[in-house]
């Protein structure tokens, strides 16, 4: 993740003072992660690019009000997360806010128990697997997908994730459990097929 210690107090001072060169450096260093969040949340490059541009336009405008004691990456991701959720709502015209933010219902259906950890590393990171990872994430509700991306992919703590999304730490934990369970389940079904099908196609 983008650790705040990567940004010196002097960097933050000049950033808040409106130094455009320093702002450019912030954009340079943080934009790949913000774009990745957009891709994960919105599912296509065009929307992710819109979200990316809007995020930094808003960030630049809001910088004079940035509290220097708070974390710049948490602050930036908060703007980005709101932007992504807003685009999602806009896209589903007529859909209520609740729909985008509500958790998935707890799913108590049977668990897939297959130990696929032993699969060779090159199979686990193959192009096909990457597609499955994206597919599994797309299956999550936006609320679960967002928490998973911030916490497990971008590496924010539970506390930071709660701050970014303006929800309680308990809500973060609950969503994280559901997201991880669902992703694990989805991938287990896929890897089980791969392990069983491996011999037939050999």
């Amino acid at each position, binding site marked *: 993740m983008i650790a705040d210690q990567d940004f010196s107090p002097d960097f933050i001072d000049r950033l808040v003072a409106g130094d*455009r060169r320093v*702002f*450019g450096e912030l*954009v340079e260093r943080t*934009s*790949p*992660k913000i*774009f*990745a969040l957009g891709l994960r949340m919105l599912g296509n*490059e065009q929307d992710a*690019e819109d979200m*990316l*541009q809007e995020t*930094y*336009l808003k960030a*630049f405008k809001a910088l004079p009000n940035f509290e220097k004691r708070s974390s710049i990456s948490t602050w930036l991701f908060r703007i980005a997360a709101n932007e992504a959720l807003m685009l999602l709502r806009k896209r589903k015209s007529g859909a209520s806010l609740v729909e985008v933010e509500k958790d998935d219902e707890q799913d*108590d259906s*049977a*668990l897939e*128990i*297959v*130990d*696929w*950890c032993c699969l060779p590393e090159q199979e*686990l*990171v193959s192009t096909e*697997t*990457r597609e499955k*990872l994206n597919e599994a*994430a797309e299956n999550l509700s936006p609320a679960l997908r967002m928490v*998973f991306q911030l916490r*497990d*992919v971008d590496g924010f703590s*539970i506390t930071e994730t709660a701050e970014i999304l303006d929800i309680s730490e308990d809500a973060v*934990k609950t969503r*994280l*459990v559901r997201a*991880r*369970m669902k*992703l*694990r389940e989805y*991938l*287990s079904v896929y890897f089980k097929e791969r392990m069983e099908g491996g011999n037939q196609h050999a």
Partner: protein
Amino acid sequence: MHNHNQCGDYLAYISDYLDGELPPEICASLEAHLRECVNCRVVVNTMRKTIELYQVTSGDETLPEGVHTRLFARLKLDD
């Protein structure tokens, strides 16, 4: 999950367990269960691996060139 009635209760703790966030007593009780229960062990391992896969496959992200150019133009940072 088979006849392991307690498994359901432990499953709810696995996510916190992976984050090292479980209170010591619950952690000890879960670990005792894991020593006996293959199924829950598989869930722990595959969940850990699931998270790891998302992390390793997202480490190499860079901004596509066009996206970068248009972003810096829009922010008037391209001069």
